[in-house]
Every structure is written in C-alpha cells, then in structure tokens.
C-alpha cells in the first residue's frame, strides 16, 4: 500500500474520555485517548476485557458519545453531532460487523445485504458483496440455514456493500472456531485490500494482530502501546 495514501487521515480523536455512571460508582471506560486512523489502514485494537476497546469503537462508529474530548471524521466533529446526524454518518460511511452477526432472521442472505444497499447512496449489488465474501452460492438461504462462519461472512458482506469509508469489526471471530474465524478474517483482509476501506478490528486474540498494519494496545482506558507491523501475516497463515 502506498505510503502517502496511508497518511490520509480519516479519524482523529483527542482526549477521549468516557465515564459510565453505574449506580453510585463511576466506571472510567476511556481515560483520555488520542488517536489517528488513516485511509486504507487495517488497525487491530488489542486489549483485555474492560480495557475500553468496544467503547472506543462505539464512539468512532457514532453509536456512543464521549464524556469529554473530541473525535473528528473527515474534519467533522462527531462529538457535536446530534442523533440524526450520527444516524446519517453510520448510514453513509460506517460498516459494522458484530461478534454475534446480528442478521435479520426473516431475511435471506441476499436480502440481509439488500436491506443496507436499499438505503445507501452508491452501493454495490448484494450479489457482488456476497461474492466478495465467497458466499454467492448461499444467497437465498435464511440465517437459520447457515453456519456461524457463513452468517458472519454475510454480516461482512452487509457491512461493506455500501462501500463504507470505515469498517468496524467488534470481535468478529469471537463466536467462531479458528478455521472458520480465519475464513472470516480472510474476507475482511480482502475487503481492506481491494476496496481500501479503513478497517478496525477489535480482538483480544494476539495472533490476529499479526495481520494488521498497525496495532493499538489498550489497557485500563488508555492506549498503552502502539506497534506497526513491518511485515504483515496473511490471514490464511494465522493460527491459534
């Protein structure tokens, strides 16, 4: 990937703090996170449970707002955006992949993708999206007729079909065995490479970090380390 493209900034966060008030105690999920994400980058957020990974991802994805600090997407301050603007932000620019797939059980694979392409500005076809994740032979199956790995790949197809600027994956392999998980990571890797989608993958699996351009280590609500992989390992060569 050319270096100059890598430097094009998509996200910038400054002093992100998030405090959840749980009854009488305050839980500090984030304690002043600064970060930049660049176009075409595949970043892995690594850290133990409760380190603030998901909170950070949710704020980047416009699902949550920080208690303090700012996050800019493409120069727009997301922290001042209202509910309606955040919905539009997610609709136009963000693709989400969840740990538990979150497919609509009453829609087929194709329709689960179409539900997003129908509201997107310049989507690819549902068929193309499914082809990209290698599921063009399962398009008319309902979720209940598919394995977990297949369901997650449909979720990826659904996330990328609108050609999002960023793809946010929260523990995408968390509910899968390693062989299936690797197939899912291959799909993510291929999307990142061919579409140039800035991709953030949350995991607590250290091995997965080897496929990233950059790895951010989170601990106790802070970024405690950052490394750039000089050589990346292809997803198919990962194992755990």
């Amino acid at each position, binding site marked *: 990937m050319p270096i100059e493209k890598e430097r094009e900034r998509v996200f910038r966060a400054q002093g992100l703090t998030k405090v959840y008030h749980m009854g009488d105690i305050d839980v500090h999920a984030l304690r002043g996170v600064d970060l930049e994400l660049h176009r075409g980058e595949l970043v892995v957020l690594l850290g133990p449970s409760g380190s603030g990974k*998901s909170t950070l991802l949710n704020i980047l994805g416009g699902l949550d707002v920080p208690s303090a600090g700012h996050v800019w997407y493409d120069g727009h301050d997301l922290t001042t955006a209202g509910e309606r603007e955040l919905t*539009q932000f997610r609709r136009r620019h963000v693709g989400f992949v969840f740990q538990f797939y*979150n497919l*609509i059980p009453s829609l087929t694979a194709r329709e689960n993708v*179409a539900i997003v392409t*129908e509201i997107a500005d310049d989507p690819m076809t549902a068929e193309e999206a499914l082809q990209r994740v290698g599921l063009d032979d399962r398009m008319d199956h309902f979720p209940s007729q598919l394995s977990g790995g297949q369901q997650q790949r449909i979720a990826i197809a659904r996330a990328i079909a609108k050609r999002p600027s960023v793809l946010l994956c929260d523990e995408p392999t968390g509910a899968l065995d390693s062989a299936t998980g690797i197939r899912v990571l291959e799909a993510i890797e291929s999307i990142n490479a061919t579409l140039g989608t800035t991709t953030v993958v949350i995991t607590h699996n250290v091995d997965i970090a080897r496929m990233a351009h950059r790895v951010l280590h989170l601990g106790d609500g802070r970024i405690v380390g950052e490394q750039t992989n000089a050589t990346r390992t292809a997803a198919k060569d990962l194992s755990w």
Partner: protein
Amino acid sequence: MVSALTRKAIRDLWHLRGQAIAIALVIASGVANLVMAKSTYESLQQTREHFYREYAFADVFASAKRAPQTLAARIADLPGVQTVQTRLMSSGNLHVTGFDEPVRAQVLSVPKEGGQPELNQLYLRAGRLPDPDAHHEAVISEAFASAHDLKPGDAIDATIYGHREHLDIVGVAISPEFVYQIQPGSTFPDFKRFAIVWINRRVLESALDMQGAFNNVVLRLRPGADPAQIVDEVDRILARYGGLGAYARKDQLSDHFLSEELRQLETMAKLFPTIFLSVAAFLLSVVLKRLIDTQREQIAILKAFGYSGFDIGRHYLQIAGLIAAIGTVLGIAGGAWLGSMLAGVYRDFYRFPFLDYHLSVLATATGLIVAFAASCVGALRAVAESVRLPPAEAMQPPAPGHFQPSLIERAGLARYLSQPNRMILRSLERRPWKALLSVIGLALACAIMMVGRFQENAIDRMIDVQLRIAAHQDLSVDFIEPSGRAALSELRALPGVRRVEGVRAVPVRLRYANYSYRTGLSGLPQDASLRRPVQADLSPITPPRHGVMLTDYLQQLLHVHVGDMLQIDVLQGRQAHLEVPVAGFVREYIGAQAYMDLDAMNRLLGDGDVVSGALLALDDGPTVDVFARLDRRPRVAGFSERSAEIGNFYTTMGQSLLVFTFISMLLGAVINFGVVYNSARIALSERGRELASLRVLGFTQGEVAHILLGELVILVAASIPLGFAAGWALCWVMAQGLQSDLFRVPLVLLPSTFAFALLTMAGSTLVSALIVRRRVAHLDLVAVLKTRE
C-alpha cells in the same frame, strides 16, 4: 416471609407494568361490565319484589265499561282469589299553569272512606292521601310532579269526562302499578305530558256517573293460583258489563317494561364480559409466552437448583394471577361506580320509593372467579411450556426462527417489496395463529365501538318509522266514547283545523291455533293520509277492504301467514267474536297492533258507523288556541301532540345515549389499546435486537419504527373488515336480545357508524404506536453488539 420466587414475580410484573396494566384494564372492563349488569339486575329485581310486596301489587287486572259493585263479591268467590279491589278509572286532561301543551292523565280512585286501597297502594313521597270529606283533593304521580315542580299545596285543573275540576294537590306518590310511568300506546315515557292522578272515589263517581258501579278491578291471588285461569273467569264475569279483557301481571305495561329491562341486563352480563375476558386471556397467553422465552436461562438455573416444574409453573401462574387480581379489583370498583351511575339513570325512568343499589356479593364473586379462570386459561399454554422445558436445553438460546418467503413473494410479487416490508410479511406469516388472534381481538374492539352508535342509529330509525313516516298528524284526539261521524264534523269546523280523519281503536284478543295476543285493533279510513302503516320497504299501505293487517312481529308471535283466518275476540261493547283473514303485514318497531279498514271494522263489530278518536292536521301546527278549543269539546277525552313526543324523546334519551356511546367507545379503546400496545411491546421485545442492529447499520428511528409498526398497521387494517362484520353481528345479537312485543330494535348501521369505529380504531392505534415509537428511540444500540441472541 415473601419467598424469593414471589419477589421475582412482583419484580417481573413491575418490569412488564405497561403490558400488565393494558391487560388488567381489559380484564377490568369485563369484570366491570359483569359487576355493573349483575348488581343492577339484582338491585332492580330485589327493589321491585320488595316494592310489589310491601305495596300489595295486584296479580290480575281488568276493566269493564260499567259493572255493578255487587260483582266484586262474585269475583272474590273465585277459587284462587285472595283480595279484590274495585276502582274507577278514567282518562283526562290536565292544565298546568305555565305549561300550554296538553297533558294526558290517567285518573284513578282511592277508597271513599279514605286510607290506602287494599291493592296497588301508594307510597307517598310527600303530603297525604285525599281527605274523604274534601272534594277537590288529589295525589299526583312523582315523575309528573317533579317534571313540573309541583308540590302539595299547588293546584291543577283537570278535565275528566267532560267535567272541569279544580284539584288541590295534597300528595305526591309512587305506585307499584306505575313504576314505569308511560302512557299506553306511547313510545317513550313523557313525564311532562302524562300524569297519574288519584282522587277520592266519590269525586270520580260523580264525574263519571258511576254510583254503585266500578269500571276497573284488580285482584291479588292466593299462592299457587293460575293467573291465566283467573283471567278467563274474570273475563266471563265481566263480559256482560262491557269487559275490556282481563290480563295478568306479566302483561301489565309497567311490569312488562321492567321485565324487559331485566332481561337486557342479563344479556349484558353475559355478552360483554365474555368478549373482554377472552381478549384478556389471549393477551396474557402472548405476554407470558414472551416472558418465558426471555427467561429460559433463569428457568434452567432455577430447575438446576432443584425447583420443580410445578414450582416454576406456579410462579408464572402467580404473575398471571397478580394481573388478574389488579384487573378484578379495578373492575369491581369500576363496576360499582358504573352500576351506581346506571342506577341513577334507572331512578329517572323507573319510579321506586327507593332503589337501594348495592354491590352484589354474588356478582363480585362471579367477576372474581371468571376473571381468574380466564387468566388461568390464557396463561396455561405458556406455563405448560415453562414446566416442560428441560434445564439443559433451556441453557441454550432458542434456535433462530425459521422463515420462508411470504405468500405474496411466492406469488411472484417479491420485487415490489422492500426488505423491511418482506420482514413484516414473513414475521406475520411465521405465526399465523398469533396474527389471527390479534386480528380477532382488534375486530372485537371495532365491534364494541360500533355498538354505542348502533343504539343511536336504531332509535333514530324507530322514531322515524313510527312517528315520521307512518304518522303525519299534528294532534291525535280521543273521544270519551265511540261517537258518530258528526263528532268529526265538529272538529273540522274548528278554526285552524285543516284535515280530520276518524279512527277507531278497540281492545282485542287475537287468536290463531294455540297462540293468542292481547292488543288494539285500529280502524283506518280508506282515504287516510295522516296515519298510514308502512310495509317492510317503508312504503305506506292502506288496509284493504277485507281482512286484517298485522304488525310483522305478530307474524312470529301468532305463527300466521297471509290468508290464514285469524280469530278476533273484541274486548269491548258487544264482545263480538270475528273471523277475519290476514291480509298482510306492516312494519312497526313499537307495539304490536292490528289494522283494518274502518268501514269494514264497523260493519263486523255491528255497533254502527262510529269512531273512537280522530287525527288532526292543523294549519299552523299545534297552538294554545287549538288546545283550548279542543279542551272545551265535551266529547274530547284527551289529545296529544306528535311533535312533542319526538322532541321529548330526544331530550330525555339524548343524554343517556351519549353516556352509552362514550362508555362503549372507552371500552372499545381499552381492548384496542390492550391488543395494539401489547402486540407492539412484544414485537419490540422479540425484535429489539434486530431493530437495534438496523439502527446501528444506519436506519433512522422512523425506518425502524416502520418495520415494527408496519406489522401492527397490517393487523389493524386486516381487523377492520372483520370488525365491521363482527360489529354487525354483535349489534344483531343485541337487537335480537331486545326484541319484544313492546318494541323491536331494527338493525340499522349507518355509514357514519362505520366511520366512527374506523376513526376511533385509528386514533387508539395511533396512541399505542406513539408510545411504542418513543421506546424505539431508546433502543440500546451498544448492548446489541455485545449480546448473543
């Protein structure tokens, strides 16, 4: 000490409070209806019995033209007769200062020697009975007194049998004979224009010229005596004295109306609670099913810790029971309140000395049992599932639902459907029974909304047919006794009178095979234009020169057809027995009468070319001037205004109809809200994750709400035609329940009624939708990413 499971039940209930309240309200509506109808029934029934007993209400009634007082002993000797009370009775006109319209009165005698009559005694609300030595003292009925604000000490003028009397009011009374104070032949009670007046027998004797005679007799029977047999005997005894046909208490006008009212309350006590409690059972079933689905893991853990299936089942039944308990308590309170309101309405129409309305213990117990039984039935299926659930399986999340393309898509219309619309259709089709039951529940709500308006439509039609289409006179005049045609010329000569038509009415008993019915036979002239009965299609018809026409209800009652020979026993004059063919039927909603051509009737009766009254069309409508002139005619016994009858109806009944419409709208809205709100909440609970995922994917709140509420809109839309049909059926059932010889309620449903149901359905759906829509705004988008299904 409250067990942990009971605490859980209470907290679960708190968590479900919105839905629990909606269901409790539906249960409450059912119980309230039951308690109201049953309590009112019981109160009315007991009050009636008490009043009849305490004030010696007679068992048999008979009138004659003039019978010697010595006949009383003969009647008293009849086996089965306990007490005989002879009286004088007359119709008259009253003149109330400041009220220019004609007031009809039924004048009754009280014993010469003073004191209460032996039978049909008076309950004095104020004042006293007439002094036997005073000449001009009268007691008036309470309904009339309060309509004109008359009190003891006031005075009225009366014209009785052509004699003008000045009467001092000494008392205001209620009698078991006139609990429902309605003028014979009237459609509705008119307390302003109809009165009962009691005066000393001696005064009435001289006015009617009835010394040593009576024209009315009432009897009390011994326990076990057969009223029908006594009626026949009395008829036989009075035949020679112009007997007008005896009848038993059940045919007495006031009692007959009361019995009809009680019958209606009984129907009401069954019909509405059944509907409400069925809907409540369905809602409970759905809500508990969902609760158990979401608590699979908890059930598994409880079972793993050693709770038995029975414990778990009881726990969920407890939740259903708590909802039923809340509903029942609300229902009993609401029923007591509605019942006292209804009793208030009854107090206006039915004059009892007291109407001690009390909350019936039996009704309360029935409400309690029925509500709990319905709740248990509703809860049973879901609870059984919780009992059966094996712990190991319960630990696993439920398998994802199986879906397939919907019928519309299989029919090749898929390309017209967006993904959200496919979701809506498939979800509906996956659980067709649930959808169907929801539709049925909503349809019942729609039906109940129609009932309130139906009453209004029906009564409008009854008035229209009876008082507008079939009748055109301004005034109807009754003569003191059948008179020759000269009486008509006299009326025609009065200034302001445009047209006069002579009519004749005689009391008769109609008989066919084993069936018989006592009613009036009216003779109408061939060239009648002021009063023409109508056929089923509402076109007017003149009775043919041969044969008799009957109100269509008599067709059912007597089982006769056109061409059948009907026996007519005339209960007046020469007591002729006639055999006349049935010439046809006329449509009437009030009363059940027979009609003949006037000339043919006079020929058959053989007592000359006479009329008993006349219908008048006036140049300028009814005026004080005309009233005054009529009042001076010695032959005129009384007269009444058609327009007053119509106007009176709308003022007396308008308010109670409005209340009824309001109540049924409220009840319909409760069901509608219960079903829509619960469906929406359950859909939200079942699909919250799915909808939150869509929100994360960039769907707006509105788009997500579309998926959630679209399903409801389809259910509501599907329920409307069914609701219209159910409404029609419910009104039909009610109309059937209201059929009697007193009146028939026609099944009239105007487009405005359908529109009303539609709008109120749409309105209450909108309210439920808005509430649920607000919840969509609070979907937890973050949680959905981290939880498995």
